[in-house]
């Protein structure tokens, strides 16, 4: 019983992390049809920025709770600045090109941004333990858990609800849905697709950066720690259905729980299991477990 509770909590916690990181990726893909490798850079830059400022403000004697504000502000700042620059400077010039070529261009940019991290922040890891230390820990299922980690689940739920609300209950969401459904038609209807794109990309970027910023207090933020994140999010997004927000949620839960089971019961297969699921889903349901409705054109 204790093991079961622990596995479920571990799984959900990891799922939440995956969801926050990958939901931005899937939104960008859904609207713009771009599989964005620089999403990993948003994650890394978000983490570095948050960790850096949490450290700075803590040294200046600000209360630890201020860390949460920094996390949010860092995510928004990093996502907006990087997202805007990349969409305007790079992607805008590429929409006519092959989608695979766009993936590669973002891969190239990802390499550049990785090294830029080194130049800006140096090689030393950053610690931003303050928010995590502030929330202390509780005993659940016979073991101690840090409350900060558990709040991840809440943050993920909040992100999911906001995404759902934004997409289904606002005018902006209706515009997005129209563009997702048929770009040309939306343009003909007078929707400013260019603006929709830049805003979507920034939202995706902010979510990626939020993933990094929120996870920063629990890890040592080191160069290159975004490399594995991007393939994991690819897996999540593909499993759920590329471009689908509920899909990203389902994908995160599947991957998170399976990984938790693996680590607890059969640690050797931990890494293998994620990609095996991805392959199986692609083979039997290429559109993903939760694919968005897509118009078919002949």
């Amino acid at each position, binding site marked *: 019983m204790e093991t079961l509770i622990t596995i479920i909590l571990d799984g959900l916690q990891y799922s939440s992390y995956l969801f926050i990181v990958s939901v931005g990726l899937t939104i960008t893909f859904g609207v713009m049809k771009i*599989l964005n490798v620089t999403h990993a850079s948003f994650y890394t830059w978000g983490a570095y920025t948050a960790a850096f400022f949490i450290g700075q403000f803590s040294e200046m004697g600000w209360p630890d709770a201020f860390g949460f504000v920094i996390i949010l502000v860092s995510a928004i700042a990093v996502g907006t600045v990087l997202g805007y620059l990349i969409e305007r400077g*790079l992607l805008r*010039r*590429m929409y006519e*090109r092959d*989608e*695979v*070529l766009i*993936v*590669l*261009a973002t*891969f*190239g*940019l*990802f*390499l*550049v941004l*990785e*090294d*830029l991290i*080194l*130049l800006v922040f140096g090689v030393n890891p950053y610690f931003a333990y303050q928010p995590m230390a502030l929330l202390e820990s509780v005993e659940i299922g016979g073991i101690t858990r840090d409350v900060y980690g558990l709040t991840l689940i809440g943050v993920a739920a909040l992100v999911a609800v906001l995404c759902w609300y934004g997409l289904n209950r606002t005018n902006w969401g209706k515009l997005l849905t129209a563009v997702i459904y048929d770009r040309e038609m939306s343009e003909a209807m007078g929707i400013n697709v260019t603006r929709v794109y830049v805003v979507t990309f920034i939202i995706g970027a902010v979510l990626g950066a939020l993933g990094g910023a929120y996870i920063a207090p629990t890890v040592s933020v080191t160069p290159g720690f975004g*490399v594995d994140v*991007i*393939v994991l999010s*690819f*897996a999540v997004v*593909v499993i759920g259905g*590329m471009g689908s927000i509920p899909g990203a949620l389902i994908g995160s839960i599947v991957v998170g729980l399976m990984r938790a089971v693996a680590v607890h019961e059969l640690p*050797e*297969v*931990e*890494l*293998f*299991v*994620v*990609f*095996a699921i*991805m*392959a199986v889903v*692609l*083979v039997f349901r*290429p559109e993903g477990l939760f694919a968005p409705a897509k118009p078919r054109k002949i």
Partner: protein
Amino acid sequence: MSRDRTIPGLTVALAVCAIGGYFIPDWLMNQMMFGFARALAILGLLVLWRTGLVSFGHALYFGLGAYAVALLDINLGISDAFVRLGVAMLVTGGVGTLLGFILRNYRDIFFAMLSLAFSMVLYGILVKTEALGSTDGFTVSPPTFLSAAPEGKYPLFVLICVFGWLAAVLVQGYLRSTLGRLTTAVRDNEIRVEYLGYSVARAIHIKYVMSAVLTGAAGALTAMALGQVDPDSMVNWTASGELVFVTILSGPGSVAAPFIGSLIFELLRTYAFELVPHAWQMIVGGTLLAVIFFLPGGIWSLFARALKADK
């Protein structure tokens, strides 16, 4: 019709490399070995690319080829270069044929993602299995040639050059055949191909297996040239990305392009690493961006321009 002089050109290049290789410094010979070995994989990816398919998982075959060599070496003590190469190609051909049955029905981003998934499955297995060397990988003993065990790298260098030449000539012949024409044809219009009575799935399957075998050979030769295999630089997604990167860098214009592009990449990386150790990735990534934006035909288009201006 202008005479196509790819094959005479390649043959001259082979002679120059094989003879010149005897006199060049060791480090350069190494770079050329790595470059030309990788070029085989690029050759396979080029065929797929012309068909409109980009695989983000060909490190699967690169790794399989390399690990086939390492496992033969460690478990059976087989050091013969030809046996190693042959087994690597058989293994990758077999796996390619099996996976091809699935992948031939996929296109675009789905093809890319499923390839990625398959390669990451292998990565997940390798990294977590101690018997397969986990993160460390294996050391590979130097190759022998039909029971001769010559000193130095020159014999392997010649093997790589000759094999590269052979592969390029065969691929060139292939591209000029009907099957070869089924690259651009499939990319342009699958419906038309089907209504001409040819199975698009089969055309893609053949090309996929071909690229798998070529990439397997590339992995095997790299493993022998390097004396080391490991999952992170050979099987991880970044390795697949690198292969696609070099394909774009080379350009699809000619079967000679992969050899030039791959060698230039090798030199670029070495010098970037030596001159700016902290920012070498930035240089590599920047080059990729520059090629995508300013040189859609890859490095080959520069050569082609130069050759044309010559006339």
